[in-house]
């Protein structure tokens, strides 16, 4: 299995490299073996297309040591597993980006996402691999985050040769075989491989780096932005039966004239009454509160709720006064120290709301019984050890099951 003519592709070396890659990254083995190598003299090094073909330059294989070649295999398969082509296309569409320069930027950003933890443990970092550090960016972020943070410029000129193929940035290349070429994988086959790899990583989480573990958790369930989740939780609470626009028997319907003797319900609008309980204990930051409160106000406005029906109540260990939300700013939040949301709930229920929205970090006791109205909890996530220095095993109670809980600040807000 050696090259039989100068300049032809040394398949033996290429496959030995893939075998090495599969041995040091067993969780990627099935994805690596699913890649189909195609010899190409136009690709500068190695590149992939979205149909899981891998284009390889014979000269590149000749001059690269096996271990480094293995690193390139893993790098290229990572582009495909992480769906960089699809994400590039979506990003380009959302931001109306056109042209090869933008696609090069996406290729660089995609490389940054992969390269921060793909090497090491038997895979040497290839010469000239782009890392977030080299661009002065933080490691551990996603391609979309990196794209927001750098522009092409003289500093990146030496990266202009960078080309991982359309599998990395979604832009078709001249040397690629396209959707109708031989040995391409269908969308379902691609999904199946990605799913199998993700299951493998989740099944044995010890061996994969954090980046891959996060990918495996989120690949088929990307976290939704909390604004959307909070919005839909609030919307469904506010539009439930009995609130908002609905049919009621308080007045006869317009159709009653046509049906004498029959009482039909008529469509009536009763704007929802929303009470927001804000946890003003020391553990919640002002910035977090501000953004969440603005969000709730915006959603209520979008629902046609009148501002005077939305009230805000700040609560620490005791409940404070209720203020109507008549402006977006200037709500006085008083408090500090510990929290007891039971007091907040009791005070909020006295306004007879349709919905109670609680913004809290969850470091509080919760009411025992389900309140008479719907409850949406916006939860600021807190990680880390214990919260009580006198009782190291203390864990705060989770929000009760009757509340709809949206974690605020997770996912792209």
């Amino acid at each position, binding site marked *: *299995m050696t090259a039989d003519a100068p300049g032809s592709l040394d398949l*033996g*070396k290429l*496959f*030995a*490299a*893939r*075998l*090495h890659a*599969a*041995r*040091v990254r067993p969780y990627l*083995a*099935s994805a*690596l*073996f*699913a890649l*189909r190598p195609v010899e190409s003299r136009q690709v500068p090094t190695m590149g992939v297309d979205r149909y899981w073909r891998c284009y390889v330059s014979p000269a590149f294989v000749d001059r690269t040591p*096996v*271990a480094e070649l*293995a690193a390139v295999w893993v790098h290229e398969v990572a582009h495909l597993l992480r769906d960089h082509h699809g994400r590039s296309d979506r990003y380009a*569409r959302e931001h109306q980006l056109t042209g090869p320069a933008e696609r090069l930027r996406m290729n660089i950003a995609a490389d940054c996402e992969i390269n921060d933890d793909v090497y090491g443990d*038997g895979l*040497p970092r290839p010469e000239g691999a782009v890392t977030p550090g080299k661009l002065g960016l933080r490691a551990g972020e996603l391609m979309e985050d990196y794209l927001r943070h750098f522009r092409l410029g003289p500093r990146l000129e030496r990266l202009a040769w960078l080309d991982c193929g359309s599998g990395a940035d979604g832009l078709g290349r001249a040397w690629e075989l396209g959707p109708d070429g031989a*040995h391409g994988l*269908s969308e*379902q086959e691609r*999904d*199946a*491989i990605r*799913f*199998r790899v993700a*299951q493998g990583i989740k099944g044995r989480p010890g061996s994969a780096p954090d980046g891959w573990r996060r990918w495996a958790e989120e690949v*088929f*369930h990307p*976290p*939704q932005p909390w604004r959307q989740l909070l*919005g*839909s*939780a609030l*919307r*469904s*609470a*506010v*539009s*439930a*039966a009995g609130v908002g*626009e*609905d*049919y009621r028997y308080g007045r006869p*319907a317009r*159709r009653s004239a046509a*049906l004498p003797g*029959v009482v*039909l*319900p008529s469509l009536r609008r009763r704007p929802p009454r929303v009470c927001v309980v804000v946890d003003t204990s020391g553990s919640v930051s002002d910035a977090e509160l501000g953004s969440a409160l603005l969000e709730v106000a915006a959603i209520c406005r*979008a*629902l046609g709720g009148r501002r005077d029906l939305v009230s805000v109540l700040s609560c620490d260990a005791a409940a404070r006064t209720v203020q109507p939300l008549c402006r977006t700013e200037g709500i006085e939040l008083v408090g500090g120290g510990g929290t007891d949301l039971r007091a907040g709930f009791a005070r909020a229920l006295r306004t007879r709301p349709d919905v109670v929205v609680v913004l809290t970090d969850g470091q509080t006791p919760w009411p025992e019984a389900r309140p008479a109205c719907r409850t949406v909890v916006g939860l600021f996530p807190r990680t880390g050890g214990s919260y009580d220095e006198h009782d190291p095993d203390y864990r705060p109670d989770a929000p009760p099951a009757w509340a*709809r*809980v949206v974690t605020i600040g997770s996912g792209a807000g």
Partner: protein
Amino acid sequence: MTSHVSVTLPAVQPQGSQLHVAEALLDLLRDTTTEPRSDLQLEALTLAVAADLPVLLWGEPGIGKTAALTQLATALDLPLTTVIASVHEPSDFSGLPVIGDDPAVQGVPMAPPDWAVRLVRAGRGLLFLDELSTAPPAVQAALLRLVLERRIGALRLPPGVRIVAAANPRSSAADGWELSPPLANRFVHLQWAHDHDVVVRGLGGTWPRATLPRLCAERLPEAVAFARRAVCEFLVARPGLVHRLPSGESRRGGAWPSPRSWEATLRLIAFATAAGSSRDVLSLLVRGTVGDGPGLELLASLDRMDLPDPETLLADPAGAGLPERGDLRQAVLDGVVDAVRRRPERARWDAAWALLVRAMETGAPDVVVVPATTLASLRREDWDVPAAIERLAGVVSLSRRADQAARPAGARR
């Protein structure tokens, strides 16, 4: 008093009239052609409707859901009845009370609306419930009875009537339409998206014409047997997936696995098999019925069902057909080695070597390394090394090369 003014438009408008010119311009605009194009989502919709499962199309307004339904109705030769849910009252779906002479004796019959009467009289038809998400909750509640129990007032829809509903996704629905888990479980959820290329080409004058699946009468028993085997084998292996309520805010309102939705999946697999549909179509349907995770697992298990049986391969290594794709090929070879391990016999061991040689000669050699190593370790003392092993020399050198790559890298760490 009303006065009647009869207006009779001239049958032929005078030449040169502005309306006439406008008519000519409209004719020119309407003059479009069609081209055949495979449309996965339309194919999936057709199969689900043919299988008599209620379908819920999730899609932004204005992306051609109605146009798709018109095409579907033509393909299935069913008259289309569109009901815009948001302009109706609950009594339109639950029946209008009509008072007779003596309600105490005769009761109050609930009269159905005219379109329902026409549907029942025709005995067949496609009922499209559009804009479910903008209807008030009481209307939605009345509609769900129609979808689930097929009842409108005193009428029951005949079995020949198929029902499709459409809703806007949660993020864009202002009125908070959200399915409760029991309701979500009864629908086949299809995400409806527009294809940028199709829209641009269509506006340019050429719209796609989808060729819709036709059920093949000869394949029906085979399709049922395949579907039963697929679902049962899978659920035997994964008992935990028989029933799993959705958890977490982001998965609300979507598909989830339960005995009911598995039964729907079974039906859909049978229909897709009888129609000879691609795995991509089946993937849309299965994931829309039991959810992404269980759906993908089922599809992965279907892929394994397609692989050749190890025992068949061992019985005739010379005539064996191995899959092209590297990862599947490795799965097959692993299966073969595993079969030898379970029943170690000299003849089987030799046959496995012959298979490995065949695999090396017809595809990438790195895939063969791991099965070959395992197979070698199964050797009993009195078994001679088969002659075929000579031909695996390439694999051995490949494996050695990969080992060499690992050594310096390992030494460096």
